[in-house]
């Protein structure tokens, strides 16, 4: 899987952190405008002090200039000195207050940084104009970096080469446009590859060109997801092998037909040769048929192999009607033995869908066997398979049986694993069916028929075929 951009929203807490750190500089602790604004303006303190000094000088000048102390001058000088003293004190007080505020702010930043570090959340920012990139200590740790500052390129150099361009693009885009973005990308590591998730917050209105965000190491999460997908895949494969077990007889028949033709043709030829009844036209025909039947047998084995093989999900454009046809050929003999009449009513046209042919065949096999099992009273029954086009636009497949129908208490849990009404069932068939349908972005549902039996429906999105 390539690095992918997730549509999912960035978590609110990460967002809040990002906005706080948007205003932090690399050291994390020297202050940018937010905290200056939150405290008192330095100019006020300075002007207070300057005024106080001027007042003092003026008062002193008045005192020394006079030859004697007049009551008026005395009082003016005392007033001026007093004012200067009050101003000096206020200035000192204000400066102290400011220091405290700065200290508090510094502490809260430290707390946030610490919390982010504990959460293994790396924080970073980028100023587009200066191409200056900085990161918190957790960021450096995650990115395996020494320098806390650098250019965007230096950071990207630590990502997987194939993911770098996309990373550049997203960051630059964020410098222009507001909004949150998420990007999962790979990071080359010793003995493999790691996965990182970048949350990227775009520039705010006041600070254009300022991008900030967080990064998390999601390698373990990725591995768990891959493991779960693997397990699901194995399970799908195993149930398919199980299905083939049920089909065993029918598949053997498929293979034995061409083998019978080959053997009989070859032995006929043998006899003709032994008895010197050589008719070249006949011999050519026999040999041609042998070759043809051999090819046919090989095709059956190929088909069987593809069903048995735990292959990767392989999506391609296919016609749902083709899948129905091929699957019916596969179950044909088995259904005869079970005295189940299978009929098919479908549009003549194509129903193009995107999907894995093997998985869709497995889905249909599941549904047909399910229908046949619902009529296993020995009396046999009928299974009707229909395909058509429904709103969406979707290709619609319906498998209708004349069995016992679905009991009300099972109906809701029908597609859950380990729900089975069969005496020998494990109860995975329908849950696997649902998993297959979901992986094809489709829907599956079931309902009881007005008369007898039940119908299972599958809808898969139709695709536009290129003419």
């Amino acid at each position, binding site marked *: 899987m390539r690095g992918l951009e997730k549509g999912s929203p960035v978590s609110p807490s990460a967002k809040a952190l990002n906005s706080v750190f948007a205003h932090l500089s690399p050291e994390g602790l020297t202050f940018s405008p937010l905290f200056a604004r939150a405290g008192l303006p330095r100019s006020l303190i300075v002007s207070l002090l300057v005024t106080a000094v001027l007042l003092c000088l003026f008062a002193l000048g008045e005192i020394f200039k006079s030859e004697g102390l007049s009551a008026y001058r005395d009082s003016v000088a005392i007033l001026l000195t007093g004012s200067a003293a009050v101003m000096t004190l206020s200035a000192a007080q204000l400066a102290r207050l400011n220091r405290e505020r700065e200290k508090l702010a510094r502490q809260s930043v430290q707390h946030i940084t610490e919390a982010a570090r504990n959460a293994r959340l790396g924080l970073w920012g980028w100023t587009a104009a200066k191409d200056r990139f900085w990161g918190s200590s957790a960021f450096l740790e995650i990115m395996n970096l020494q320098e806390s500052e650098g250019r965007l390129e230096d950071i990207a150099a630590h990502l997987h080469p194939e993911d770098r361009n996309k990373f550049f693009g997203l960051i630059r885009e964020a410098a222009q446009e507001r909004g949150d973005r998420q990007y999962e990308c790979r990071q080359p590591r010793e003995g493999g590859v790691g996965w990182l998730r970048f949350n990227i917050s775009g520039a705010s209105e006041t600070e254009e060109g300022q991008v900030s965000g967080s990064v998390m190491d999601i390698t373990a999460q990725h591995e768990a997801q891959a493991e779960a997908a693997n397990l699901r895949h194995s399970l799908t494969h195993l149930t398919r092998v199980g299905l083939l077990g049920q089909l065993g007889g029918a598949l053997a028949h498929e293979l034995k037909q061409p083998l019978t033709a080959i053997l*009989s043709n070859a032995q006929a030829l043998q006899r003709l040769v032994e008895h010197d009844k050589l008719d070249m036209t006949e011999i050519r025909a026999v040999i041609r048929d042998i070759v043809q039947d051999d090819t046919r047998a090989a095709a059956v084995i190929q088909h069987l192999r593809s069903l048995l093989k735990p292959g990767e999900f392989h999506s391609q454009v296919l016609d749902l009607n083709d899948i129905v046809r091929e699957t019916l050929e596969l179950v044909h003999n088995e259904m005869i033995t079970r005295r189940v009449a299978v009929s098919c009513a479908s549009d003549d046209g194509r129903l193009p869908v995107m999907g894995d042919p093997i998985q869709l065949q497995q889905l249909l096999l599941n549904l047909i066997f399910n229908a046949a099992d619902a009529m296993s009273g020995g009396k046999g029954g009928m299974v009707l398979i229909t395909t058509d086009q429904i709103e969406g636009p979707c290709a619609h497949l319906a498998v209708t049986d004349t069995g016992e129908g679905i009991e009300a208490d099972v109906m809701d849990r029908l597609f859950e694993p380990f729900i089975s009404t069969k005496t020998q069932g494990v109860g995975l068939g329908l849950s696997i069916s649902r998993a297959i349908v979901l992986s094809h972005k489709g829907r599956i549902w079931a309902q009881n028929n007005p008369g007898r039996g039940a119908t299972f429906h599958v809808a898969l999105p139709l695709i536009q075929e290129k003419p």
Partner: protein
Amino acid sequence: MIPAEAPQIFVVDDDPSVLTALKRLLNSAGFSTRTFLSPLDFLSAHDPDVPGCAVIDVGMDKMSGIVLQERLMLGAQPRPIIFLTGCDDVRVSVQAMKAGALDYLSKPVSDQALLAAVEHALDEDRKARATRQEVEELRRRHDSLTLREREVMAQIVRGRLNKQIAFDLGIVEKTAKVHRGRVMEKMQVRSVAALVRIAEKLEQAGEK
């Protein structure tokens, strides 16, 4: 007697390539073969009077071999059947054998097995046809007897003497003797023992 027609092998399989190959094999062994892709075609073209046997695939599309067999067995002249099967389903084979199939061969079938089975089936068919013909002939002879003669024949085969027969039927002994002579003549036998054997055959055939 009409000269017996050459026996035919009727092959029924819905797989064209298997059908052709089987026909070639049987032809190469000198058999006269007719092939049918569908059981229904075979049934509609079927003439029970033509000697021979049928080689039928069990797992056919429109009508299974077993159903075809049931239809064939309904007639007065059952046709020996060899089944070919692609899947080794015990239930089906038991069903087939119970319904009177002569042989049940697994595909792919070797020439030896198939030809031996066909020989055997033709042999059975020949015997069955001979028996049916003989019984028919005997029945024809029996039908030529008058009612009185049939009564007398029934007495003879029970080992009764002319005197006893005459007494039972309320006729004179001399008349009984004449009837006995006619019966032996019409049934074309010289001894009472031979007449008894014919009576047994007719009785068996009548039961069938």
